[in-house]
């Protein structure tokens, strides 16, 4: 059986589109609104959902996602609740769902139980920000199978030999970090990213999605012309934060997804 992630990229290839990957902190601004927001985003053109599991000390994240995690934690979010949300979303959509987490919440939950419960809830993959290949055996060795894709990060500082090593144990897609720094930083160097994709392409056949610092439709179009997918996180979270008391919060997010999705339908895509 072909999994939902591979199938999504295959369908997009046929439609000559790139993947719009959206990161949303589960439980922000609260569990019920969060569910409505994510459901609406899924129906407005999102191709892959990255569901953020909040952690009290998110060292890889900038201020926007730090604050969104804090809001979700204040609402009582935890990994168990995120898996419940995943299960409810799975009843609504066939879109791939990637759980995006720091390692400690998964470690506390137990890697074995996590694998079982994440699959049962309908998750398709997991990205653990602070678990490099050097340490990840302790998690995957407790998994009873390999049905959960292990999305891995490649950074601007990653040399070619290491890219290959990372790609070897990755599945689903590779998440290429566009620049050094935390999530939500400004400034995008498309030329530099193009070079990095070329290099990474020589190390893997997996789809390559680029994230960090992508915040406008123009950014999305620029990245979509060179990568297989574009990851947006802080830009969505900033919109939530700016509209916490706005009754139109859900449609604002849906419209933004729509706008970004259009930008992924590139006419003259470069094949690297």
């Amino acid at each position, binding site marked *: 059986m072909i999994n939902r992630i591979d199938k999504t990229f295959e369908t997009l290839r046929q439609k000559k589109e790139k993947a719009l990957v959206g990161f949303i902190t589960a439980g922000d601004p609260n569990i019920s609104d969060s569910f409505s927001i994510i459901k609406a985003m899924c129906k407005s053109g999102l191709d892959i959902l990255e569901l953020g599991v909040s952690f009290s000390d998110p*060292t890889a994240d900038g201020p926007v996602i730090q604050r969104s995690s804090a809001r979700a934690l204040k609402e009582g979010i935890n990994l168990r609740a995120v898996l419940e949300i995943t299960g409810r979303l799975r009843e609504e959509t066939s879109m791939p769902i990637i759980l995006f987490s720091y390692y*400690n919440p998964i470690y506390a939950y137990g890697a074995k139980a996590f694998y079982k419960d994440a699959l049962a809830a309908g998750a398709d993959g997991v990205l653990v920000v602070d678990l490099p290949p050097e340490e990840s055996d302790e998690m995957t060795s407790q998994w009873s199978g390999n049905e959960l894709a292990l999305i891995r990060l490649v950074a601007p500082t990653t040399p070619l030999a290491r890219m290959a090593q990372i790609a070897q144990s990755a599945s689903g897609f590779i998440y290429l970090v566009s620049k050094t720094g935390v999530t939500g930083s400004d400034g995008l160097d498309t030329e530099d990213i193009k070079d990095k994709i070329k290099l990474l392409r020589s190390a893997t056949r997996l789809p390559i999605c680029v994230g960090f610092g992508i915040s406008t439709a123009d950014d999305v179009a620029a990245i979509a012309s060179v990568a297989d997918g574009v990851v947006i996180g802080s830009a969505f979270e900033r919109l939530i934060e700016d509209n916490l008391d706005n009754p139109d919060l859900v449609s604002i997010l849906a419209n933004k997804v729509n706008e970004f999705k259009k930008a992924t339908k590139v006419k003259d895509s470069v094949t690297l």
Partner: protein
Amino acid sequence: MGNKEKPIQNSKQFKAGEYPDSRGHFGLYGGRYVGETLMPALLELDEAYNKIVPDPGFQDEFKRLLRNYAGRPTPLFYAKRLSEHLDGAFIYLKREDLVHTGAHKINNTLGQALLARRMGKKKLIAETGAGQHGVATATAAALFGMECRIFMGTEDIQRQSANVQRMKLLGAEVIPVTSGTMTLKDAMNEAMRFWVKAVRDTFYVIGSVAGPHPYPVMVREFQRVIGNETREQILRRTGGLPAVLIACVGGGSNAMGLFYAFMDDPLEMVGVEAAGKGIKTKKHAATLGEGSIGVLHGSKSYLLQDENGQIQEAHSIAAGLDYPGVGPEHSLLKDLNRVQYVSIDDEQALEAFKTLCVLEGIIPALESSHAIAWAMVEAARRPQNEIIVVNLSGRGDKDLGIVSLYL
């Protein structure tokens, strides 16, 4: 629910030099749990550390700096009046408060700054709680003509304002951290975030035996001079070994520095954590006593956390102990029962602070006062022919503001 990793109890003897393994694991603990952007930098640092630090040229320069600049060796002082007052064992104080900048932290920052220079990095960053590591990093940066940024929680900036002034005088930029609990944990979060951005030209000087590999082993190696000197001094002076060593434990660098030289000796070691307002109140920093295993700031160790793996707030009157984690090697030493970990609350620490002031004319740091307080407990119940060595890790000038609120 819950992870299945269980500590090994007593099944193995700790031997100095056996840990960590080549990937930085101290048994279950340690490792490198960081984002991919930092991994190449940590691999580069590990390689540089293994190549440069053992080099005789590096060692000569490091030892020369410790002697001529930092003022080592520090004295081992017999606290006669304190010992007589307690009417028990002999208490000796390892006077790290007398080293340049007033705390043991300088041993490590000189080592790391020297390594940074040999790696061609000209910018230093550091986190600080009590400010002693910040001051020691700023000092090394000034000495080597390097740019220096120190991350410090606003709560700590307030309670350790004298050290903030010192860092600024030394030419460092002090960056206030307003996230989370606004203490050491958050200063470390922010330093890591900055490092992710500036990783290509910036050296992160971690102040304790914590963080991702190779920091726990590197900081231990730069701090072990404390124990090396102490062992030689006590043997020369008394002809024998102490019965027990005592040091306070926040991240645990001064304790590891004192203990390591004695690991294969038949003696007891006690690490003193901060019980804050009391172990039962949850307002404490007794990570080893009350915590559970988890991953924070790049390594696996005991942590104060809830059942969902969210880190809990720590509390101590001593900013340098106010941290919900602890160095990974301490976690192993606890499991193997090689070191006993106990705790002392804010009030007991203040009482010890006062006692040392009036009986010995020494104003200790509030952090070190926790070790003094435990030594007072131990001395009173031990026979008079036994020797206790306490690491007096720092001086208390920085704490006068906070102490005056209580006395």
